[in-house]
């Protein structure tokens, strides 16, 4: 199958180094302490953050830091086949864990001992790259909730098909079964906090693909910063009025 044609265009008309259209919106769930919707092309994810608040299960309480919990789920209507999936399957558990660990790495948990932070992410529409979209949505929601963080975490994936590194795989490209690298970075600190890959890739190519994904993360970080800035401006404006 040809994923990049000789003219250098991918199946959806992008070039290899191009990301899908991204869009973000803060404050979609008014009840939550912080919330956001994040879209990468047709992938749409909503995230809501509650906390810091009292720890529900006392036995889990930690005296030196906050407890971060994460729950990931997919809406039944998120994929083409509207199948009812059981909650808590292995894939969801794994993604929940990945998101939790990634977010934990950037939240300044020691500032909020004996408290709990809950992150809920749900995929509303899936078209590849859901993991990255979840992390990006969670970052925005955490920022919206005013939870102290070292830096923003942003994530993006890149793959390798037809001997070409491709940024931000969509569902069609993702299901090609090629290597798919998901990277999460702390853009200001320039640190990688998440690196996941399915299948095998020679080391020198992995480097290129990772580099590309990192570039993607940085671009997303810029966008997220803009959104946050805009949001703050609006808040200021509302307060002022």
């Amino acid at each position, binding site marked *: 199958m040809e994923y990049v*044609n*000789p*003219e250098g*265009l991918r*199946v*959806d*008309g*992008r*070039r290899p*180094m*191009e*990301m*899908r*259209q991204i869009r973000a919106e803060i404050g979609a769930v008014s009840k939550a302490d912080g919330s956001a919707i994040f879209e990468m*092309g*047709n992938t749409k994810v909503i995230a809501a953050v509650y906390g810091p608040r009292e720890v529900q299960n006392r036995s889990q309480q930690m005296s030196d830091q906050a407890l971060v919990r994460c729950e990931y789920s997919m809406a039944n209507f998120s994929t*083409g*086949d509207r199948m009812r999936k059981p909650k808590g399957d292995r894939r969801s558990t794994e993604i929940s864990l990945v998101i939790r660990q990634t977010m934990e790495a950037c939240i300044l948990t020691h500032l909020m001992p004996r408290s709990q932070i809950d992150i809920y992410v749900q995929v509303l*529409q899936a*078209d590849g790259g859901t993991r990255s979209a979840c992390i990006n949505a969670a970052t925005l929601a955490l920022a919206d909730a005013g939870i102290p963080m070292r830096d923003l975490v942003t994530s993006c994936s890149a793959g390798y098909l037809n001997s070409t590194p491709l940024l931000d795989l*969509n569902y*069609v490209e993702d299901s090609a079964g090629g290597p798919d690298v998901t990277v999460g970075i702390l853009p200001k600190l320039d640190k990688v906090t998440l690196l996941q890959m399915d299948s*095998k890739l020679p080391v020198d190519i992995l480097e290129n693909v990772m580099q590309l994904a990192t*570039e*993607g993360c940085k*671009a997303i970080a810029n966008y997220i910063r803009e959104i946050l800035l805009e949001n703050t401006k609006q808040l200021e404006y509302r307060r002022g009025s």
Partner: protein
Amino acid sequence: MLHNKLFPKKTRGGKIIRQLREHYLRDDIYCGAPFCTVCDSSGARLSESASTILVVDTNVVLNQIDLLENPAIDDVVVLSIVLEEVKNKNLSVYNRIRAICDNSMRKFCVFSNEYHRDTYVKDMRGETKNDRNDRAIRVAAQWYQKHLGGAVKVLLITNDKENKRKASEEGICAETVESYVKSLDRPDLLDLLVRPSSEDVDMEEVEDLRPSKRKVIYSEHKPMSEITSGLHRGIYHQGKLRVNRYNPFEAYVGSESIGDEIIIYGRSNMNRAFDGDIVAVELLPQDQWKEEKSLSIAGEDGDEDEDVHLAPNSADVAPRTIPQQCSTGEVNAGSCRPCGCIVGIIKRNWHSYCGSLEPMPMPGGSGGVAHALFVSKDRRIPKIRIQTRQLENLLDKRIIVSVDSWDRQSRYPSGHYVRTIGEIGDRDTESEVVLIENDINSRPFSSQVLACLPPLPWSVTSEDLSIPFRQDLRHLRVFSVDPPGCKDIDDALHCYALRSIYFLGYYFVSNISPSCRAAYSHLYIADVTNFVFPGTPLDDEASQRGTSVYLVERRIDMLPKPLTEDVCSLRSDVERLAFSVIWEMTPEADIISTRYTKSVIKSAAALSYVEAQARMDDSRLMDPVTTDLRNMNSLAKKMRLRRIERGALTLASAEVKFQIDTETHDPLDIGMYQIREANQMVEEFMLAANVSVAQQILKSFPLCSLLRRHPTPTREMLEPLLRVAAAVGLNLDVSSSKALADSLDHAVGDDPYFNKLIRILATRCMSQAVYFCSGDLSPPEYQHYGLATPLYTHFTSPIRRYADVIVHRLLAASLGISKLPPVFQDRLQLTSIADNLNYRHRNAQMAGRASVELHTLIYFRKRPTDTEARIVKIRSNGFFVFVPKYGIEGPVYLTTRAEKGSGEWYVDEQEQKIKKMDGSLSYSILQTVQIHMEVVEPQPNRPKLQLTLI
């Protein structure tokens, strides 16, 4: 980050589920015209001075690809929607149009109209996919017209009436292919056009030229639905049609459903199927399962003579014979093979063919359209009718023709002219025909491939020497023995006696004395994989080519010349990298241990077989290289003896060698290739290395080793040999290779050549050895019958065979020198590589033989000769003779064609004799006859070698 987001399109796809796909439309897709002021023209493909730009529709590409391939057609815009449709309909045409677009010499430009902001069209309600795509093509054409303004004329080429009408309505210039080509005033281009089959009516006159023939009407092909249900119910059988290379009226369909081959006799049963087509066959009623006696030399058509050809060296290239009657005595209709007729064609294998036009008188009035019959060089292909406006140009040329259609009313398929190769009989032309016919890529290597070569001049560096697994063996006295003038030296040898090393330090032994403990024999093979890395363009190219091809006057390399003749070649007096096999052997040539290592060597001498033999034979010579040679030879003789004891067959083939004039490249002399002891010595060490390496790699990689097997010949395959043997009173035991080898040894006749002749006849009954992936078969099937060894592979010629490159990688991985490339984890891919190697190997052989046949013809053109020949096959109107001196075989007629079957001669099947009715004269099999060889031209420009009795 560049991100051209305009508006995403959401389409419905799939049957049940709704799928959303994004579709980004861009503004950075350029028109490809260098004179365009709006676009970035740095990568523009159209020509600077284009006056007309052509936009072609899908059907034009699909049907007229031969026209588009002609360099006269240029400045063509190929839309991405057209490419997509072509790809879905015909992958081979897609690859061809892509190749044109990639060719920098051609002015073809791909325009991604589907991703361009202004040329993307949305689906409209109630519109078919076809209509939508036609509309997209028109929109793109219109865009070009607007975009480029008055600078050029944009012309839409379409043969679809409706599309053309709509285009004109929308103000787009549109023309049909025919009218456009006519406007170019190039009559030769018109020949390239595919004609709709309705023009067939005019063709009757061509057939009338053959008054003896009735018009043949074929039965109708069953519709696909009926075929599918027939296959399902078991009435029809599906399989690939293979036409007998030596008798185009006989074909076989290997059917899995009945587990046997179905034989198809005659053109009407074949019902317009071509060799390689996937067909549906219906069995004939059993009483019609005739055993066709193809006893006469000429075919059903009368004009299809059997030509003189090179004597076959295996069953794969020999004429196939179906056992005539069930000769073992049981004349039983039930035991005969099933016969069938073709009811439908599931998949066509049409491509283009190489050949020439059947000679015909020029039609009155020049410049008009002439109808001609094209005869393919490949005899399996029926004649093809073409129309041409350049008949006088084509009659004496080798041309390429494509097939377009074959309807029920016409005896022959119709096609069109594609291109001319050159004049018939011209050596270069005929050589190219040989290459084309055998699908051999003789193009120069691409720049990507050449970029993979190491920097030249190359030499061994200290870095190479410092690698831990590479052993420095430069101090050893290494030499190579090859055919004279050999430049791609794959292998070199070295040998020394252990004892002498111990006691003399520097040694001068004249022979390995029985008292010495052991001898070391080294075999060095060029370390090609040190330069050819998996996955590189160089590796891909070599894998595709599979093997170097040796024609009489040239060699088509598998790897670029700097590698084959310099960097990898183990030439004398230069340091080279090698992969070595080191055996410790007893003086009796028993292997004590085997070791493999990469090494650096410096060859002391590059000898030819003749030189090596002369050195060994000259008892005065006592120099170190000569002693080494003698030592190795004595070991080799012992190894050979042991191999033969195990039951290896000593087969014989009649290989000829030409002496070629260096100036004119014409053959000066022709003679049998002499096999000397020196050849056998080198061969023996090679065989041993291949066996050792096969064991080593299979041990490490039981599922993905590339091995070579030689299937045991079936009784049916040996039938011709047994029949001949029975007629001359020879008893052959074919129960095992050992038994056959022994009975071949005991086959001595009255004359010295008799034994060799029997061996030659035996050899041509065997099929050829084939490559396979060890995971695909079970160990008992790995066997190599001819060499009588359970395992065998190819390791010794990596410069000219890709199989050896693969085996080198396997061996290196088994030693822990390098990792196994990823392809070895993919069984399917490995199997397809093995299949390709077998295909290439066979083609290379066929090409080599065809080249020898061509040079034989050129040689005898000026030299009519009388010589001795042996009868090898009896036919009802003559016999086939084998000419030992020239290695060729051909028919000798006792009756002229006109009196065919007049009953003057009759065949005694049992005794394999042809006798005159009155008993005055008879010829028997294997008998020596004197013949006259001469090149005749029964038709102008169609020279052939004729054999007649003196």
